[in-house]
């Protein structure tokens, strides 16, 4: 996208979210929408992350706690099932891993430079409850 200089920006500028003016936001899923370049959906904050959440599908119970508490709309959830993490928009705050209720957790924070496959292969075992 081409940035305008300070003296080229018009006062009272309007930033459209979509290319198409009649976009039905309520019924269209994010991947079907025709986002304009001025929507922050097209931007990325991936470089903010120090830790990243890794999602393990085998343990997940689709409770959607992570979806509702994610501040960055970075949990991809379709048709009542959790699909994964949108790494373009995730800032690595760790709320999703904190609110995950399963045992072991299906979302765990790891260092950004670790490989997802490698981490998934050594996922922690179920912990017994301490009495």
């Amino acid at each position, binding site marked *: 996208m081409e940035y305008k200089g300070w003296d080229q920006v018009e006062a009272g500028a309007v930033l459209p*979210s979509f290319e198409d003016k009649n976009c039905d936001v309520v*019924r269209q899923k994010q991947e079907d929408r025709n986002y304009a370049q*001025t929507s*922050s959906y097209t931007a990325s904050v991936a470089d903010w992350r120090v830790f990243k959440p890794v999602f393990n599908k085998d343990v997940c119970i689709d409770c959607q706690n992570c979806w509702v508490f994610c501040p960055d*709309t970075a949990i991809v959830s379709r048709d009542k099932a959790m699909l994964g993490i949108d790494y373009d928009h995730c800032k690595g705050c760790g709320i999703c891993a904190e609110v995950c209720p399963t045992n072991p957790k299906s979302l765990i924070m790891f260092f950004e430079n670790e490989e997802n496959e490698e981490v998934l292969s050594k996922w922690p075992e179920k912990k017994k409850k301490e009495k």
Partner: protein
Amino acid sequence: MSKIIKNLKQFSTSNDRFEGAHLLCPGCAHSIIVRELLNCTDDNLVIANATGCLEVCTAVYPHTSWDASWIHIGFENAATAATGAEAMYKTLKKKGRLKDPDKPVKFVAFGGDGATYDIGFQFLSGAVERGHDFTYVCLDNEVYANTGGQRSSSTPRGSSTTTTPAGKVSYGNKKYKKDIVAIMAAHGAPYVAQVAPNKWKDMVKKYQKALATEGPVFINAMSACTTEWKFPADQTIDVSDLGTDSLVFPLYEIENGSKLTITYRPKNIVPVRDYLGVQGRFKHLFKKENEHIITQMQKDVDKRWEMLQRREEAGV
């Protein structure tokens, strides 16, 4: 026409209308609160936003995070902008000049606690007094977080901020927090409520009720601030939990200026000390010479809870 949301799975099928890659801090509760409001309804929304964290972070040139009509207005007049749009909409509807007159449109104003409690208070008061059909949501993080953490009239007693720093002579902010919910209820607004992001179902219910109510609605939302309350980013929901369970932020609603209903009663009430202990801004209160502030705070919270319960029983 509000959407029916029975459980979290059903809620998660909503198509998000608040996009990611805004520049709010990691773990900020603002976006959780805003996202739920945008997702809990199918109606078109017109949003006015006062200056503050939410505004500067969601509309950084050249990007916008909003999939709804959104306008940024001065620090003080988010309520005025929303009511102005509402008045124009009503007039155009009366004159038959709307393209789609049957499609419901809701008017929402967002403001931080600085924009609501202090700077925009007169404008909010006026808008509620005029009786426009709009919803005002105050994102209450108890400090001017956007400009570096100056105290606002929402800052609780004993909190250390950049303008009321705690040290050898002072224990931080000496003034009490303004009870904005009671003030707005006293205006005779048809619906006034307090919400917290950790109780998502309670929040969605109140939002839907607010949007369905005709007339001015005020909602005070607790918004835990990782930067100014000084706790780790992943603890936002836990800190909010402690806030509601220790009754520092009781969740209740007031209808028609009088009928008070408590919507969440914690099973185990946590001492206020636990809520203060997780936040860096209250660290100094745990020194020996400041202990009396905590005792006083616990007393105030208990007294308020007692008052709320009595008011609920009496129904006045």
